[in-house]
């Protein structure tokens, strides 16, 4: 326990330097901006901003990128409440009751409770990361290749179960993602695989290029089919601070939301997205009068908002302790760390304690900043929504081009975001969700490496995955989950969660 405080203390001494404070603020500001604007997400933004971090110190760079991610969670709820447009996938649930509250003239209270709930969740999540960091790191050190492989398989199964829509399509996307990750030079034999003989493919497909194609360009193409005209009217926001009655109603949902979100966030396979849905369903089940939900129940804002922020932050845990990115944003963090010569994994904590604890401390500071940025500046953010999409997408397009070009100075990278954009758009048209594909791609290389290593150690026997107890347990969890998800009754329940 004493360790924890001295470590956190060390972290704060790093996060509170002038430069890092400034970078955290910048990250939170950009994050809020992309959170507010529908059609721009944190993945494309972080990919665009990667080159900017080249000149920074690694700690500062990661502090800024992390700020963008959790800042977007705050920003997304602002537009969800005020104009019924979810800025991010995680704030979809907030539109249900948040916007109803706004219609009843309680927009300020909804924003206030969302921000306060998120701040509370962020604080708890910071402590959770700090407390779980050390034990999980120790656990990771006893993991061999077989365990790593099984853990990643479990993560991918989670991603299948948690994905929207058809399970078959989600599986297809994950396998396709892993297949794409095998493009390039084979690490052990040096032979080129699936490269069409093209020299720029011999290093494999660059993750930033794939991410920007699928989440930058394909998103633009998808949005072009879906734009509509809407009235964006300035509303009276009303008082911002919730009163005692509001707090009485919402402190329990915030606590529950934080717990659910934090647990789901740790799961590899992008559990953070599910947090708000799970929290909303739970509050509705627990409520004395469920019919209030959908008509401006404050619990329906407080719980999910706490859950999404807690999940966004605890999703750093697998990355920092095990070196496994649980979602696409964390995969970009891997990219940012590799650029600065840091290998993500259990050794980060011992070899780069400044980075590990500085980043954790900065998250709490960032949450405090977001509370301040968001509430008084609500009017400014809402005005941003008046930027019409037909002007926004050309700007996004140019930023994507410049961003991807400046990573490697290769015009072919720019062309490839176009190609992947088209492929992503086709996949979306065919009803596939691109998020699992990206996760499969991210884990693919690690997956193959560990599979081969484990098989070499076991002299080609697949039994090794079942004989080693931890590995067997992880695979069992994965198998049970997959079976459960395929059972008709549970499948129905899963669909309902997403439909709501």
């Amino acid at each position, binding site marked *: 326990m004493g360790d924890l405080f001295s470590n956190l203390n060390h972290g704060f001494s790093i996060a509170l330097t002038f430069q890092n404070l400034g970078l955290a603020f910048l990250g939170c500001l950009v994050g809020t901006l992309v959170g507010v604007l529908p059609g721009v997400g944190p993945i494309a933004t972080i990919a665009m901003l990667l080159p900017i971090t080249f000149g920074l110190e690694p700690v500062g760079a990661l502090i800024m990128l992390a700020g963008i991610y959790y800042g977007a969670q705050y920003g997304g709820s602002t537009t969800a409440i005020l104009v019924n447009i979810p800025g991010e996938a995680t704030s979809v649930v907030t539109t249900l009751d948040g916007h109803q509250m706004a219609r009843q003239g309680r927009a300020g209270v909804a924003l206030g409770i969302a921000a306060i709930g998120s701040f509370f969740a962020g604080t708890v999540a910071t402590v959770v990361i700090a407390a779980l960091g050390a034990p999980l790191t120790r656990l990771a050190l006893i993991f061999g290749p077989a365990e790593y492989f099984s853990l990643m398989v479990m993560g991918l199964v989670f991603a299948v179960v948690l994905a929207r829509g058809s399970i078959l399509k989600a599986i297809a996307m994950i396998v396709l993602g892993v297949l794409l990750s095998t493009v390039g030079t084979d690490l052990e034999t040096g032979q080129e695989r699936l490269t069409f003989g093209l020299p720029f493919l011999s290093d494999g497909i660059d993750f930033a290029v794939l991410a920007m194609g699928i989440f930058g360009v394909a998103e633009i193409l998808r949005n072009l089919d879906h734009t509509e005209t809407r009235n964006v009217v300035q509303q009276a926001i009303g008082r911002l601070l919730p009163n005692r009655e509001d707090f009485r109603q919402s402190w329990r949902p915030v606590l529950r939301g934080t717990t659910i979100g934090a647990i789901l966030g740790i799961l590899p396979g992008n559990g953070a997205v599910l947090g708000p849905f799970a929290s909303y369903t739970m509050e509705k089940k627990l409520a004395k009068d469920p019919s209030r939900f959908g008509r401006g129940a404050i619990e329906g804002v407080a719980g999910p908002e706490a859950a999404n922020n807690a999940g966004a932050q605890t999703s750093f845990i697998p990355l920092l302790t095990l070196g496994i990115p649980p979602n696409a944003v964390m995969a970009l963090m891997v990219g940012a760390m590799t650029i600065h010569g840091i290998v993500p994994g259990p050794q980060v904590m011992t070899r780069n304690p400044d980075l590990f604890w500085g980043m954790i401390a900065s998250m709490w500071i960032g949450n405090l900043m977001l509370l301040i940025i968001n509430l008084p500046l609500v009017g400014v953010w809402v005005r941003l929504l008046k930027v019409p999409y037909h*002007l926004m997408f050309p700007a996004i397009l140019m930023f994507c081009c410049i961003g991807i070009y400046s990573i490697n100075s290769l015009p072919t990278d720019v062309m490839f975001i176009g190609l992947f954009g088209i492929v992503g758009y086709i996949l979306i048209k065919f009803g596939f969700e691109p998020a699992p594909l990206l996760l499969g791609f991210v884990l693919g290389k690690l997956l193959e490496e560990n599979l081969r290593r484990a098989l070499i150690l076991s002299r080609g026997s697949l039994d090794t995955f079942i004989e080693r107890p931890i590995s067997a347990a992880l695979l069992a969890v994965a198998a049970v989950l997959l079976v459960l998800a395929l059972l008709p009754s549970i499948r129905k329940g899963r669909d309902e969660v997403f439909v709501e």
Partner: protein
Amino acid sequence: MSLSPQGVAQPPMRRGPIRSTQNFAGGLFLLALAALALYLARNLPQGSLRSMGPAMLPDWLAYGVGACGFALVVMSLLRDGEALAKSSLRGPVVVLLAILAFAMTIRPFSLGAMGLPGLGMVVAGPLAIIIGGYATPDVRLRPLLILALSLTPFCMVLFGDLLNLPIPIFPQSFANLFPASWSQKEILRATAVVMAIAALALFLTGRRRPSNRIDVVDHSGTM
């Protein structure tokens, strides 16, 4: 469930045995990708489990993708599902053109006999914005010009001046127009200022129509 604006399970207007054109097309697409991967990996050694060759995992995965595709095709014949939503080609084609224009002008480019001098961000940026803008039917040139003339100098200063990234800003022939005593950075700044002033002038001379109706994205899946 899906984000498709057409809604789930349209009234049956099908001809033939396919009950979900979306799943059918998706399945075929996966089968094609799997076939492509198997074709590309055909000459690589498989190896054994004890020491896996380069082709083993890609082959397994390709079979996996193919199996999913096959299952989708079968499902599309057995179960009702969504139809393929109609979409115009305008968006994808124009956006692709804009990206190609950027890639081909940012630095010297040659394809066979055809060659383009490197024009740098000062040309590539506005090209991407203005061509890209035509991806939507409600395009108006003037706002696009203003956008191009204001964002490009912003990016030039941010990436070229403040961050010192090695991205070409303008062609050398353009730099030769300036007095020899000017440094690259000074030329960059002067150009940025001129572009920003042009944007401002365009903005001020344009008529402004106050309106609360704007187009926004209607979806909930931004990641």
